[in-house]
């Protein structure tokens, strides 16, 4: 009999295993972070300097960079398992597939938030914007916009790794799901930087929160169908 406590215990074990493996090699983190830094650098130059000041471009550059870097990092979770057939062995263990989902999701969330923790300060630095007074809300909106698409990325990562052209299939299938968090993130960030009142973005914040709840739930329900044999 699998109890709820068992699911959380196994999820923590899977997440811990994933993060330890990531800390040993650091491949995904280092490549995602340097990818983010380079994309931000490209954005600073890919700007029409006659019309736009650096600060005007900052919200879009920040969120697009973050989304793309996160997508590259998401590939990690199952690419690792594919080597040596580790995923098959994990699935042979008598644990609920939901527990594996929550473990993978938690590890992905940590990795992607580390990417965010590097992207946000770099964007502030590169685009020379004044974020004093809005750092708290900026961090909050990043935390709010991330879990939903990381959940979808976890499921689609498990799917894409077992297809041909896995590296191509993940962004192709995942990008549509970035749309709501990305639009919301850019809109909220732009208004925060323009010192607009928070009430102006209440609709976006609600949308991001509902997106998280709905997709984490739906993904936990669908994940077992992906991995079952």
């Amino acid at each position, binding site marked *: 009999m699998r109890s709820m406590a068992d699911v959380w215990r196994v999820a923590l074990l899977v997440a811990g295993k994933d993060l330890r493996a990531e800390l040993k090699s650091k491949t995904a983190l280092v490549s995602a972070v340097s990818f983010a830094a380079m994309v931000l650098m490209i954005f600073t130059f890919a700007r029409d300097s006659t019309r736009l000041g650096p600060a005007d471009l900052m919200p879009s550059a920040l969120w697009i960079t973050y989304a793309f870097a996160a997508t590259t990092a998401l590939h990690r979770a199952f690419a690792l398992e594919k080597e040596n057939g580790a995923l098959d062995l994990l699935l042979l263990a008598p644990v609920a597939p939901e527990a594996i989902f929550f473990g993978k999701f938690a590890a992905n969330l940590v990795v992607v938030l580390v990417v965010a923790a590097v992207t946000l300060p770099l964007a502030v630095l590169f685009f020379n914007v004044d974020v004093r007074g809005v750092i708290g809300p900026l961090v909050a909106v990043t935390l709010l916009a991330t879990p939903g698409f990381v959940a979808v990325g976890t499921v*689609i990562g498990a799917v894409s790794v077992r*297809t041909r052209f896995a590296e191509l299939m993940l962004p192709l299938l995942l990008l549509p799901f970035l749309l*709501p968090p990305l639009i*919301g993130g850019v*809109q909220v960030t732009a208004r925060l930087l323009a010192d607009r009142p928070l009430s102006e973005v209440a609709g976006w914040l609600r*949308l991001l929160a509902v997106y998280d709840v709905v997709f984490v739930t739906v993904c936990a329900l669908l994940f077992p169908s992906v991995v079952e044999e």
Partner: protein
Amino acid sequence: MTAGAERALTRRGLWLSAVSLLLLVGIYVLAFAATPIERSQGFAQKIFYLHVPAAWCALLGFTVVGVVSLLYLWLKDPRLDLFAASAAEVGVIFSIVMLTSGPLWARPVWGTWWQWDARLTLTLLLFFLFLGYLSLRSAVHDPAERARFSAVVALLGLVLVPFVHLSVYLFRTIHPTPVVLKPSAPTLPGSMLTVLLLSLLVHTLLYAGLVLARYGIARTAAEARIDG
């Protein structure tokens, strides 16, 4: 089912499609002869009788793929998977009709080919989701895996649609407001409404015919692979 039965499915589908195409010609005769010229949009408004039903079929196709995928995950019948794939392929065709007829109308009426309005963005997104779904299918070799993976992705897409609609709506919208499906009575003049409803019916028949034919072919191919 014998090989003959699958061929019969295909044949019935092709017949239904052929009849619908003929009826579609009739719809256009009606649209030109029996409906008035719209006052502000002029002749360009005639595309309405093609564009709206095509959009309806694309949305119908997307919903069918979602519902049949859910049934597949529940019942695990490979026929449901083949049906979902056929519904998606035909849905792509209607999406293309919708996405090309829309700009042809928008250019003279809005003065622009494309607008990032809520509904336009949503239909373009549907098109991308369809393409992703079909690419995924072509990238998985094992039929059972392909069925499970594509069903999961289709359902995720179905859940995504309202979110994208809402986010673009929060951005802003200029699409003509509904003239038929709305809480009060339709504001469309009688003859226009009749032709539109007939066109919707004929397009739905065409959609069903094409899906049936495609499904028959998919079944024949699947049987051939098992026998061979």
